[in-house]
């Protein structure tokens, strides 16, 4: 069962936590969701690597109404090409005022999950379409794709 009106609830919950308890609380909420609620998904990512991440997201978006998302592999990275974000589309189509930080939930939820799995997460774009990259980290917390490059700290 998929009920897109649940996106209204997410938008409202983000606004409520942000306005009532502040931005730090909202980030703590998103990070906790990724690290704790999605712990078992993140553990699978850790076991199965980038291919597992790609498979997991393909299956996830198939359940989301009106989502148009391509999932590809680029070397050791899994890339989500979100052409139509189902949440933003439904909120817009329904005339809802979208909180300006809505897309940041992906950054914090996915970074927390990726951190558990030994990956980094980066998003470019947003508010309807974006690209999301999951890249493996070395044990020192650097991107595998970088040779002596910048350190990417893992989330706590």
């Amino acid at each position, binding site marked *: 069962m998929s*009920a897109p009106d649940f996106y209204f609830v997410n938008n*409202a919950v983000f606004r*409520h936590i942000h306005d009532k308890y502040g931005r730090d609380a909202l980030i703590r909420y998103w990070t906790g969701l990724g690290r704790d609620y999605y712990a078992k998904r993140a553990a699978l990512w850790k076991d199965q690597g980038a291919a597992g991440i790609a498979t997991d997201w393909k299956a996830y978006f198939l359940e989301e109404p009106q989502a148009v998302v391509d999932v590809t592999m680029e070397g050791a990275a899994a890339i989500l090409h979100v052409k139509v974000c189902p949440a933003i589309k439904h909120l817009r189509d329904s005339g809802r005022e979208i909180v300006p930080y809505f897309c940041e939930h992906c950054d914090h939820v996915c970074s927390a999950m990726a951190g558990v799995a030994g990956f980094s997460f980066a998003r470019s774009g947003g508010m309807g379409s974006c690209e999301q990259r999951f890249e493996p980290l070395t044990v020192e917390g650097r991107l595998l794709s970088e040779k002596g490059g910048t350190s990417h700290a893992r989330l706590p």
Partner: protein
Amino acid sequence: MLGCHDFCGYYDWTFHFIRREFGEAAVQSLWADAIGQDSQRHYIELGLREGLKGLFEAWRQTGEDEQCDWTFTLDAKSNVLRWDMRKCPSKGFLLAHDLNADEDYCDHCMGWESSMLGSLGLRMIRHEHNHSGQCWGEMTLAGTEPAELTLEADIRKDPRWQTGFVERFDRHIKLPVLGQPGGQSDWVAVLAGAMAGERLVILGRGPSVRDLPSAAQSGSRLLVTGSAYASGEQWWKSPDVVLVNSPVDDTLLAGISARYSQAGSEHRPLLAYAYLPSQPPVAFPNYGLPRPVPILPALIRANLYVHDPRGPFPTTGVFLALLGAAVSNAREVHIAGIDGYAHPSGVTYAHGVGPADATWQPEHSPEVDQSALARVGAHLGSRLCFLGSGPMRDRPESQP
């Protein structure tokens, strides 16, 4: 991203996060303001335009779209809009995926609906839910007192209504728990009332129950397992709380029922049960038993238990220890008979009654029990006297 197909799972987790971080009033505010007002704006606009009839049509359509197993009834004459839910898709998602993060997921419906209805000049006048996916409610115009509808679709006529534990609401207010003294509407308070005293004794079934000093018995409250109660074990007093085992089967329920029904009312214990979402629903009234009091709300509220979906869960004795730690204010808490099937004597059960090949079942694990007992030890500190043995003895801060 946070999708909609697995929404109910993280919705439950969200309630727990808000409750843990900001308290009970904060979760009520989340339900009333964020859910009942902001997110439900479409229903508020519809209700303002078309009243109860508009809500009736919308929810009936939602039911068809989402294949909800429910009946909506509008009695236009008395202005009563009623639902009878046979299989709640929201709670059903949690049950199907073995999820139980918050202490009471079902309460959120009253939390947001009362707020939304208030904006429409309406109110919920009656509601009950059984935490197993069945519920009903009636809403009407504020300030009116129409009689309850009599319907063939009344969910209380459905055999599934006999499962779970029931909460009742009258005009948005949660009513006292049925059949319990003290007029408490909070399950944790009901358990605390049954366990109130200077000394608490928690007994598993292992041989170390024999090590319990007689001084511990004086003026104590006694908690035992359902299997010990059913097998006819005798103690120095009638138990105050009996925790029905998980898993439970017909034989065990029949045994508990036989002893419970034979006991005089003053010797009947408070029955408790974990209602783990992974376990099949049990219709306790069909065995002549009252619906047991749930223990997970107390354990979750005390931060002593995090439900592990599809993972092993504590044995019944360890659940009792967690319950005692979560609820009791006793000066001394004595725990004995939790030996992890590894008592030095080689004996498994103190009273020799139990399966001959008793060992760790797949739904349990020594690690889960040890970890839980460590939390019990940390929580109770110097109040704890732990008399268990084997691998269990190493973990709690015991003071025999």
